[in-house]
C-alpha cells in the first residue's frame, strides 16, 4: 500500500438486496483517507447501514471496485472478508452491541480472541493491561467484571468502542452509536472516541441522521452526494 493511496476507495459500486428490483446503493466515487474522522449523514433508508456493511465486507456488492487498505474486497471469498474484517475493522452498532451472557471484559476481548493478527498488534504488552488502559481512557474501568445487562446504554456504547478499538484496527465504522444518548453524553462519547482513534491511528467513518454532532468531525458528507441510486 503506497502512502498516498486512500484507505477506502469505492468506484462504480452497485449493491442490490436479494429480491429487490432496484439497487439500494450506486456509489460512483467515494474515498476516505487514512486518519480522517468522517461524518456521513442521510435520512433513514438512505443506505448508511448498507454502505457500512459493504465496507466491512459483510455484504458483497454486485459490481464495482471496493478497495480497503489497498486490498480488493470484491476478489475475496466471504471467509476472507470475515478474516479481513476481524483484522482491520472495528464496528459499533446503534445499540445492543454486547453479547448478554458475557461479562464486559469478555465482550471487549472478543476481537483478539477471533483474530490472531489483532492480538499480535498488541505486541508483547499484556492483553489485560491493554484492555484496562483502553477502559481507563473511556472511563469504564470499574465495569469490567460486570454483566453487560447491568450497565447503562452510554456505558454499553463505550464498551463497544473499547472492543472495536482493541488491537488497533485501521478502520472504525460506527453506525449511529450515539442516537440513544443525550447531547452532553454524545459529545463526551465522541471526544473519548476520537482521542483513542488518534492514539491508535484509526480512521473513523461515522454515520448518523443527526447533524448536531457534525461539527466535531474533520469532514462531513451527505449520503446523497455519495449514493446515486434513485430510491
Amino acid at each position, binding site marked *: 500500500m503506497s502512502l498516498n493511496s486512500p484507505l477506502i476507495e469505492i468506484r462504480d459500486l452497485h449493491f442490490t438486496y*436479494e429480491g429487490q428490483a432496484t439497487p439500494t446503493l450506486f456509489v460512483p466515487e467515494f474515498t476516505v483517507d487514512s486518519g480522517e474522522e468522517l461524518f456521513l449523514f442521510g435520512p433513514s433508508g438512505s443506505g448508511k*447501514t448498507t454502505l*457500512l456493511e459493504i465496507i*466491512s465486507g459483510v455484504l458483497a456488492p454486485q459490481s464495482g471496485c471496493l478497495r480497503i487498505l489497498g486490498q480488493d474486497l470484491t476478489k475475496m471469498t466471504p471467509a476472507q472478508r*470475515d478474516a479481513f474484517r*476481524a483484522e482491520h475493522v472495528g464496528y459499533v452498532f446503534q445499540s*445492543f452491541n454486547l*453479547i448478554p451472557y458475557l461479562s464486559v471484559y469478555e465482550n471487549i476481548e472478543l476481537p483478539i480472541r477471533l483474530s490472531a493478527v489483532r492480538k499480535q498488534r498488541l505486541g508483547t504488552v499484556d492483553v489485560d493491561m491493554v484492555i484496562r488502559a483502553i477502559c481507563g481512557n473511556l472511563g469504564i474501568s470499574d465495569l469490567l467484571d460486570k454483566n453487560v445487562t447491568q450497565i447503562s446504554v452510554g456505558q454499553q456504547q463505550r464498551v463497544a468502542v473499547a*472492543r472495536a478499538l482493541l488491537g488497533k484496527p485501521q478502520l472504525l465504522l460506527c*453506525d449511529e452509536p450515539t442516537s440513544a444518548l443525550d447531547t452532553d453524553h454524545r459529545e463526551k462519547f465522541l471526544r473519548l472516541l476520537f482521542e483513542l482513534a488518534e492514539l491508535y491511528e484509526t480512521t473513523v467513518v461515522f454515520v448518523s441522521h443527526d447533524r448536531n454532532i457534525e461539527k466535531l468531525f474533520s469532514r462531513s458528507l451527505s449520503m446523497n452526494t455519495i449514493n446515486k441510486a434513485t430510491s
Partner: protein
Amino acid sequence: MIFLKLALKSLKNRMLATGLTVLSISLSIGLLLTVERAQRAAEDGFNQTISKTDLIVGARSGPLQLVLYTVFNIGNATHNISFSTYQEIAKHPAIAWTIPYSLGDGHRGFRVVGTNQDFFKYYHFRKNQKVGFAAGRPFQELTDVVIGSEVARQLQYKMGQNIVVSHGVTKEEGFQHHDDLPFQISGIMAATGTPLDRAVYISLEAMEALHLEHSENLKKENIKPDAITSFFVGTHSRLDILKLQREINAFAKEPLLAIIPGVALAELWEGLSYAERILRLISLMVLIVGFMAMLIALTTTLNERRREMAILRAVGAQSKHILGLLVFESALLTFLGVVGGVILSLGLVAALAPWIESKFGLYLAGSALTQTELFYILGALAAGTVIGLIPAFKAQNQALKDGLSVRF
C-alpha cells in the same frame, strides 16, 4: 477455544431450557438403555432357566408344549411315559444321568412335581447353578415335601409344617383331595429366579401313592411308580446328543419326543420377542421425542439470538463459525443428555436390581454396556449432532441475510 467458551456461556445463560433439554434426552436415553438391559437380562434368564440338560424327553406332542410343561410349569402333558420305557432308555450307554419328572398334581395353585434325588444332584440352571436349600434337606421319607422359595413366601410355610396335597393344578376347593397322605415340609429351596421356585417337590413314590385308593400305612419300598411325565437327560459327550435324540424319537415301543432345551427355548423366545420389539420401539420413540424437544428448544431461541450472531459476525466470526457454534451446542446438549442417561440407567438398575431379582427372577448381572448400548449411545450422539444442523443452518442463513442490521 473461544467458541467453546461462547457455547458454554450461552447454554448457561439459557439454563432452564438447556437443563430441560438435557433432562429430556437423559430420560429417553436412560429408558432406552434400561429397557435394553432388562431385555437382555430377561433373555439370558429365560435361556438359562435350565442348563446342562442335553435332552428333555416326553410323550409325543409338540416341542413347545413339552418345554412349557416341564421347564415352565405351564400346561399339562396329554400322555405319560411308562416307567419301564424310562428305565430302558436311561440305561443307554451314551446317557450319563437322568431326572424323572412326574407332573399333574397341584397344591394351592402351585405345581406338584414328583422326582427323585437326581433332581437335586443334576438339575442345573444359569450355567452351573444347582438347586440349593434355604432350610432343611431333600425329601427322604414318603411324606417328605420340598417347596420352592416362592411357594414358601406366598403361602408362608415353615419348616416341618404339615400340608395337604391335592390333585390337579388348581386353587379351586372341593377338588378331590388326597387327605389320606399328610406331607411334612422337609426342605425349603433357595430362590433360583426360575420356575423352580413355584413348585412343590415330592418323591415319585409319594406321587404314585397319592393316586392309590388307600394310602394308609404305605411303605416307600412297596410302591413302584408305573408312569412319569417326562425326564431330563445328560449325556457323556455332547457329540452323542443328536444321535440319541434320533434314537429316542424313533423308539418303537412308545411314541416319544426328545428335544434339545437350548433350541426349544431359543424358538420360544423368538416367539415372545415381538413384545421385546414393541418395548424397544417405544423407547426409540421416546428418544425421538427427546430430540424433538431439543430441536424445538434450539429453534425457538434462534430468533432471540440474531443480535448475538450479528455481533459475532461484526467482530470477525465467519458464518461457518456460527454454524459450528450451534452444532457444537446441540452436540454438547446431546452428550450431556447421553451421559445423564447412562448414569440414570446404571443408577436405576443398581437401585432396582434386588427388587427385580426377587420379583421377576431377572438377574441384571453381566456388563452394563455391551455393543448394543454403545451403538445406541453413538447413534444418539450422531443423531443429536445431525439434528443440531437444522437450526444451525437456519442461523447461518439468517446471519448472512440479516447482515449486521438486525432490527428489534
